[in-house]
């Protein structure tokens, strides 16, 4: 098969079952996108609106960012799909490393003043 790797295809080999599945998936992605736009607007409103205390705003927008993280990773980047075990373990170990790094740097730089 190596010799025809650069050949374009006249048609798709998908059967109607696979085609239906992929169309359904595409619809799911558009809904996930609409949801992401919605929570983005919510985050901006929480900051832009008068009279909402910061003690509420900051945890709230961080939570919304976390929801966006999950939507992006699991829907747009397909981590929820089958055969994504290794990508999942890479991304999770990246995030597990990232969290203490952020905490350590905030403490180091923020507590020991420049």
């Amino acid at each position, binding site marked *: 098969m190596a010799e025809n790797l650069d050949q374009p295809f006249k048609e798709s080999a*998908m059967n109607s079952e696979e085609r239906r599945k992929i169309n359904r998936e595409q619809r799911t992605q558009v809904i996930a996108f609409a949801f992401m736009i919605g929570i983005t607007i919510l985050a901006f409103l929480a900051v832009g609106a008068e009279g909402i205390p910061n003690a509420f705003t900051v945890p709230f927008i961080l939570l919304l960012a976390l929801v966006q*993280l999950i939507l992006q990773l699991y829907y*747009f980047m397909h981590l929820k799909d089958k055969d994504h075990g290794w990508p999942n373990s890479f991304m999770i170990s990246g995030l597990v490393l990232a969290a203490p*790094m952020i905490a350590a*740097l905030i403490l180091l730089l923020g507590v020991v003043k420049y």
Partner: protein
Amino acid sequence: MADSVDVNKGLPANPEKATLEGKNKFLGMFVFLAGETTMFATFFGTYLGLRSGTASGPESADLFQLPLVFIMTMILLTSSLTSVLATFAMKKNQFGKLKLWMWVTFLLGVSFLSLEIYEFVEYYEHGLGYTTSAFASSFYTLVGLHGAHVLFGLGWILLLLLRNRNAGITLTNAPKFYAFSLYWHFIDLVWVFIFTVVYLMGIGG
């Protein structure tokens, strides 16, 4: 070859992972993105540690404008959707649609980057130079690093589109378009945290 794929019937349903090389590109991309996650974490941590060190220069609340950041966010989020639609067109062997959505992604990325450059020039004119304060340098480094990633992605997709303008969808270029789309989602993901941690917390926190 154990992982050979039957191509007689047409384009396989997952052309980006039909060959061993495609599978490797796919996995390698995630290794790279996991590394990028930790790198961006160090920049975020630095910014959060230094953001109150304004050294009597401009503060974030004096500079940041919600409408501009909102427009930039919408542009980048939409470009993430268009690159998803491009990968769906790829799976369905619709090369014209793939190219169209990728060009839309490219143009949205260009407009995002232009707004970011405009923003930086604006801040500079308000007295926020790179060395003005610890806040200034950590801000420009974090947001600029993201901007550099956008620029790199734009060059990447431009080259892919130009080189494959008449190629059709093949088992060679499908993994490349797919890897770009993963990269682009990651850029979008980093921006979600930048607009939350830098801009929204800078204005309201």
